[in-house]
């Protein structure tokens, strides 16, 4: 499919969009032009300002400065209703659905078609029936959202936008919750829309998707647009370099792995979450001293739950965990989490802000989280703030935390420095086993390299590391052995040398598991 001719006015044109949240300059004088009937990608690292920019286009945030034109006509978008009126629809990364409403009620909300619901409902049913048939987006209109899986919920979001007659569709990280097959189906849908003359803006941080699905791509970095390219004329390498602003070297230099004794073994772990969904369906694995085991998978396939279960935080429905051949108490209680730490199991959680630290605490207070019972931190029941500050100052020096201010509020450090505080706290104890989730999410490039080097050093010191990451590059760069998770199960295992993105990708999709696992 060819991009639209240059003579036609762009479907969407942004000029000088600027937006600050307090001290954070989220968008800096952004210019963007999206051709009608095209699929336009926007890529950038976490925090590059992609979502904020599209939030502004959709009227969710108000820009501090700048103009928006739709089909060449300037529009004033003060609230989402203005965007909807201008024919813009958006599928947000976090779905904007009322959980205890039916699909139909969610679609109707804001487009009720009259003061009484009855008439609008009948009309909506008819219109939605047609949309669903046209695009193969089958959803039970009377099902409650909370009973639907995430993929279906995304379909509801798409229906909402189509029902409102959106001509420009913005999708924010739509594949984060999808399996590769579902993602492919979505991209086929985008193709259909393009052929009908609709315009699609696809926000993602996955370069593969950009190359596979878009006509043009705009790269954002630190709130500004750094480049726009025809997709056909660019490459993953170029885009990655544009995204981070220099040559990227995600491969860390490291020696061959010399695995030692088995440190962690889990057998048949099962976990059912509060909604009754089985998140872990019998996971077994083992991690040996001196190796980094990476867990790869599309987000939401049970990796997060696995990590938390191993750290003693989730009540398991079945299975056993052995640490140095000693059986651990069933997890899911504060006592189990305490016991794991005492055994020498360190855990750097995925959710840094709500679990790894307390953002309202001073750095010194966050640095003793989980270790507040240490004898050297006070006398008897008393806790010495001075002792905590001393320890924190030492760690800040050792882990290059900036600013090295123990009294500063944890939330005021950058993502990278927060992660260094958490990582420092956890490996300061010289643990035998480190469980680490998404170590570089929301972390700047400089800190990523620092963190990766530390992890490799820890491995070389003969420690066992279990790494969960949604970034394939990170897994490929660090792991000595790679396990792939899909739908709550481990569907394959590859040695570092045997692994490449293609093989991993297939396994992450749940395909070819038999071949790889046997």
């Amino acid at each position: 499919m060819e991009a639209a001719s240059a003579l036609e006015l762009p479907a969407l044109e942004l000029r000088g969009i600027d937006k600050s949240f307090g001290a954070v300059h989220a968008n800096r004088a952004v210019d963007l032009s999206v051709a009608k009937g095209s699929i336009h990608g926007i890529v950038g690292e976490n925090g590059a300002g992609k979502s904020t920019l599209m939030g502004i286009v959709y009227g969710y945030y108000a820009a501090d400065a700048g103009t928006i034109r739709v089909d060449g006509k300037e529009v004033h978008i003060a609230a989402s209703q203005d965007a909807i009126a201008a024919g813009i629809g958006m599928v947000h990364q976090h779905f904007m659905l009322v959980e205890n409403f039916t699909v139909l009620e969610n679609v109707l909300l804001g487009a009720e078609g009259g003061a009484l619901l009855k008439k609008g409902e009948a009309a909506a049913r008819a219109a939605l029936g047609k949309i669903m048939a046209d695009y193969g987006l089958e959803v039970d209109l009377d099902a409650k959202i909370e009973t639907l899986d995430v993929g279906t919920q995304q379909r509801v979001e798409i229906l909402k936008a189509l029902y409102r007659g959106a001509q420009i569709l913005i999708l924010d990280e739509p594949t984060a919750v999808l399996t590769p097959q579902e993602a492919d189906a979505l991209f086929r849908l985008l193709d259909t829309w393009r052929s009908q003359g609709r315009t699609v803006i696809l926000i993602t941080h996955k370069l593969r998707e950009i190359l596979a699905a878009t006509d043009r791509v705009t790269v954002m970095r630190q709130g500004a647009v750094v480049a726009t390219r025809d997709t056909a004329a660019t490459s993953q390498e170029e885009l990655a370099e544009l995204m981070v602003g220099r040559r990227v070297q995600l491969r860390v230099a490291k020696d061959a792995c010399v695995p030692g004794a088995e440190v962690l073994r889990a057998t048949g772990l099962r976990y059912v979450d509060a909604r009754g969904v089985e998140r872990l369906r019998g996971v077994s694995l083992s991690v040996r001293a001196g190796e980094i085991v990476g867990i790869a998978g599309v987000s939401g396939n049970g990796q997060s739950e696995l990590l938390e279960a191993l750290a003693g935080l989730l009540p398991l429905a079945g299975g056993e965990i052995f640490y140095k051949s000693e059986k651990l108490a069933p997890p899911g209680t504060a006592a189990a989490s305490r016991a794991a730490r005492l055994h020498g199991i360190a855990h750097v959680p995925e959710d840094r802000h709500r679990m790894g630290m307390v953002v309202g605490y001073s750095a010194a207070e966050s640095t003793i989280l989980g270790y507040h019972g240490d004898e050297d931190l006070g006398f008897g029941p008393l806790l010495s703030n001075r002792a905590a500050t001393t320890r924190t100052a030492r760690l800040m020096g050792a882990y290059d935390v900036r600013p090295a201010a123990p009294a500063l509020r944890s939330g005021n450090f950058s993502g990278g420095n927060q992660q260094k505080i958490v990582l420092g706290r956890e490996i300061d104890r010289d643990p035998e086993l480190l469980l680490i989730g998404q170590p570089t999410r929301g972390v700047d490039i400089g800190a990523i390299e620092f963190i990766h080097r530390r992890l490799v050093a820890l491995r070389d010191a003969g420690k066992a590391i279990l790494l969960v990451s949604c970034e394939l590059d990170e897994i490929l760069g660090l792991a000595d052995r790679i396990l792939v998770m899909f739908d709550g199960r481990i569907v394959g295992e590859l040695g570092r040398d045997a692994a490449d993105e293609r093989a991993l990708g297939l396994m992450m999709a749940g395909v070819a598991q038999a071949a790889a696992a046997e």
Partner: protein
Amino acid sequence: MEDLVLQTVSLLASTVRLAVPLILCALAGLFAERSGVVDIGLEGKMLAGAFAAASVAFWLQSAWAGLAAAMLVSIAFALVHGFACITHRGNQVVAGMALNVLAVGLTAVLAFAWFQEGGKTPALADAARFRPLQLPFVAEISTVPVLGTIYARLLSGHNALVYLTAALVPLVAFVVFRTRFGLRLRAVGENPHAVDTAGISVARLRYQAMLASGALCGIAGAYLSTAQSASFLREMTAGKGFLALAALIFGKWMPIPTLFACLLFAFADALQGRLQGVALPGIGVVPVQAIQALPYLLTILLLAGFVGKAHAPRASGIPYSKEK
């Protein structure tokens, strides 16, 4: 036989009379909480309304003028609540608390200063009150055994506000479940982000809910001081606002179940007067306080999941902010 019927009917009739302020307040709370604003300020709004109604009804010698004043004052209180919680994203419980305390203080101070009767308002003449109305054909039908008694003493003989309340319950149910406003109201209390991205103003919607809450609390207040009593008395709401809140929880934030919860609590109240000092067979004398405590006890048991489960609107209590 006829005596038993008479007694039962009179018990039920006083249940209805006691239930009216609870129902109105609970419906007020329903609007506020369904929109995502926890409303422990029902008590204060009702008290302020009661004082306004009694004062204006006395000055203008008109119950209807009193009612209008009560609604206005109560709405003003609700708007202060909204200003604090919606506009300035203040703590909803604290704001409700502030209004309750302020209402207790202001009504007592103003009543004392304006009327010099030690904190109450002057007794209202019948003309300035809501008086019982007789439904048509009462005289003819009342002679019919049982049904006649029920018609004459249970259905007929209440004041206008009782009939208004009876009409309001189905109306509120209709508005909440069958109209555009209701759909948006239910949505904004569950997920305001969904409402915002659907192109609807969260703040505007919540203010509308607070307006409804204020108006209904005002009617409840007017009922207390110009229908049930003939003047405003200090702290005359006596915890009814909280009891209504309990009923709302008990009714799981739905109009019809809430109505029945109010009737149940009012029935306990009506019964308590009659049971005083009476020994029940097999149980003995039930302390008045035990019956008074019953609604609260039931609500606690419900909240604890021992009898069913109550789920508050998911976003209630949380000030809306676009950044999560």
